[in-house]
């Protein structure tokens, strides 16, 4: 980046600066013994051209839309099109959530994102004993296609894209979406959206798991194979670091484990015989935006660069689209506090800014009351407005990747990349991510980091405003509560569906799913047939639990 004589001069001047500084510090020392990121990465007091002297701009940074995409995946970035404002929503039953979807779209949201309640996430129906106490609480209750039809009433599926945070039953929810669109007259070739469908990070962090890793991967590859041919605008996986981070990982672990998961999916799909350039362009990513501003920005920039190298050099992908890491971001739920909840608006705004300066393609901003419950309408509006102010008032969208060239940001980007490679190579040596998970490796690394961070908070080494420092009483805020009649309505509807559908057809469809599960045929067409007959999510998942066995938590701590 710099000429030899320039660097020499910088070195000499820096030496003088360090000497002067140490005189000052001998009288007034620095405030802290160590300055670290939230992930405990030590940060120097000053970065200079020396820190990036080996950085090759053309090879490592380059231009937006150009390999290795450090500066962003689109040539025009936000000057061409803003990120998608996609608020993760789901509350009570499909009626309440449909109303929330319309509310958000009317207020300027540009994409939908569904939060399902726990029973749906885990492959149980609302009438299962496992659903007791959980219906409609952490998201929307969906048992059958009927619920999806209500959920999307009045929403044109050819105009809006939808992201679904769903994992073990991802293929079933995708099938429901396809059939629902078909009923609206929108073909599966036209619909756009994402299923999370990332089981590896479930074993590592989010823990909504159902089947063991191998059959889980097989169903994922079925969806990739099917969508590549039949649903070309669908993002088949959202390879997620968010939950890894929320479980307590460091930024580097989030980055490395996510990309290592991505590598495992690419390998699995290639083993099926798919051409990497056919499916790789539809892989998408999802990261956290935690409170440490620069560390996050460096993480996103490093993520794009590493993935581009992985796809081109390791998997020999030829299409530039296969090299691109496109990602959604959610601000960090775990950074928010129950104490003085209005402070969460500020935290979320900084985190959203980091995501945007890091070139996110889509963003969810948390609401101030989300440490307590699903957000109220008022709270979610402030969260959405936070994005709109960022996009349309602050001017940060005027120029692309404005922090490129910062000695600090470039050096930190390099550092994140290096440390992530160390992890990726270690996982390679273990035989890949599935093997690493079976050994409990990423799980223990995260548990270790989470415990260390908690100790640092307890010891006041890390400050969270309003929790142990600047403590004041705050009046309670109004929070959203699940109304009991929603549960009754959901159970009644499920019962009605089961009585009025053609149960002989349902039985036949379930038999087909069982057969395909056993003989290895692609499951997607059979799942689509089944959901069209209003087969429930649990009915399908029960077949899988029988055929493949259930995964239970090894309980590492």
């Amino acid at each position, binding site marked *: 980046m710099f000429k030899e004589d320039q660097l020499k001069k910088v070195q000499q001047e820096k030496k003088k600066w360090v000497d002067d500084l140490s005189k000052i510090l001998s009288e007034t020392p620095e405030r802290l013994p160590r300055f670290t990121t939230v992930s405990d990465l030590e940060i120097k007091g000053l970065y200079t051209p020396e820190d990036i002297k080996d950085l090759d701009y053309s090879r490592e940074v380059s231009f937006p839309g150009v390999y290795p995409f450090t500066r962003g995946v689109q040539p025009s970035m936000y000057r061409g099109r803003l990120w998608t404002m996609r608020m993760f929503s789901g509350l009570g039953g499909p009626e309440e959530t449909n109303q929330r979807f319309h509310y958000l779209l009317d207020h300027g949201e540009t994409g939908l994102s569904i939060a399902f309640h*726990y*029973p749906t*996430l*885990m492959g*149980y129906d609302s009438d299962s*004993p*496992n*659903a*007791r*106490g*959980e219906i409609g*609480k*952490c998201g929307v209750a969906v048992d059958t296609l009927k619920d999806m039809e209500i959920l999307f009433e009045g929403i044109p599926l050819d105009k809006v894209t939808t992201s679904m945070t769903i994992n073990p039953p991802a293929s079933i929810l995708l099938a429901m979406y396809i059939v629902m669109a078909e009923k609206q007259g929108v073909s599966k070739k036209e619909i756009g959206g994402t299923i999370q469908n990332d089981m590896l990070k*479930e074993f590592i962090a*989010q*823990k*909504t798991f159902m089947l063991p890793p191998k059959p889980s991967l097989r169903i994922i590859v079925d969806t990739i194979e099917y969508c590549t041919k039949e649903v070309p605008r669908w993002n088949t996986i959202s390879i997620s670091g968010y939950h890894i981070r*929320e*479980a*307590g990982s460091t930024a580097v672990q989030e980055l490395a484990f996510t990309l290592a998961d991505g590598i495992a999916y690419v390998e699995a799909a290639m083993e099926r015989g798919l051409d990497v350039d056919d499916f790789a362009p539809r892989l998408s990513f999802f990261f956290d935006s935690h409170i440490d501003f620069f560390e996050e920005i460096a993480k996103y920039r490093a993520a794009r660069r590493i993935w581009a190298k992985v796809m081109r050099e390791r998997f020999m992908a030829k299409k530039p689209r296969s090299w691109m890491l496109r990602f959604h971001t959610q601000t960090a739920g*775990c950074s928010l*506090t*129950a*104490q003085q909840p209005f402070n969460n608006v500020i935290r979320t705004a900084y985190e959203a800014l980091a995501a945007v300066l890091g070139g996110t393609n889509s963003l969810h901003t948390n609401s101030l009351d989300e*440490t*307590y*419950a699903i957000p109220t309408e008022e709270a979610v509006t402030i969260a959405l407005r936070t994005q709109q102010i960022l996009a349309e008032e602050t001017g940060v969208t005027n120029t692309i990747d404005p922090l490129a060239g910062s000695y600090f940001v470039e050096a930190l980007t390099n550092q994140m990349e290096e440390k992530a490679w160390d992890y990726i190579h270690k996982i390679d040596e273990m035989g890949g991510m599935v093997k690493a998970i079976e050994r409990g490796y990423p799980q223990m690394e995260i*548990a270790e980091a*989470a*415990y260390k961070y*908690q*100790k640092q*908070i*307890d010891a006041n080494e890390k400050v969270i405003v309003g*929790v*142990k420092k600047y403590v004041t009483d705050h009046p*309670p805020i109004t*929070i959203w509560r*699940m109304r009991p009649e929603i549960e009754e309505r959901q159970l009644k509807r499920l019962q009605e569906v089961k009585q009025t559908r053609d149960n002989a057809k349902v039985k036949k469809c379930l038999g087909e799913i069982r057969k395909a599960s056993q003989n290895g045929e692609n499951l997607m067409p059979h799942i689509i047939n089944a959901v069209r007959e209003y087969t429930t999510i649990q009915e399908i998942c029960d077949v899988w639990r029988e055929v493949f066995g259930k995964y*239970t*938590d*090894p*309980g*590492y*701590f």
Partner: protein
Amino acid sequence: MAMEESMERKIRILIAKPGLDGHDRGAKIIARGFRDAGFEVVYTGLHQTPEQIVAAAIQEDVDGIGLSILSGAHDYIFPQVIQLLREKGADDIVVFGGGIIPEEDILALKGTGVKALFVPGTTIEEAVKWVRENIKPRK
């Protein structure tokens, strides 16, 4: 004195994750914190029904059960665990918990017999101290 203490049975705690909730960061941190404080800790792992938790508590002969819930299912799960303990004649096992529990629910849950609820902001040390003061090894 030191001699006497070392002869005494250690406090045994079951840390449990009931329901479908997958948020186990807090449960694992507290399990580890308790272990580091010298308690004997059994962790159930995720996705346990109240029936499984009570069975594990009895089988492991624990002195206390710490339930971690962040999914909003606390108003069903805590009373259910307490009732099952009573039915099994094991209601001398102290039940406490932590997680996302709105203030107005805390009083109601304490009324059903939950001895303490630790909400966000609690340090490991505070929880350890409470256990030492409120849970004694059963004979």
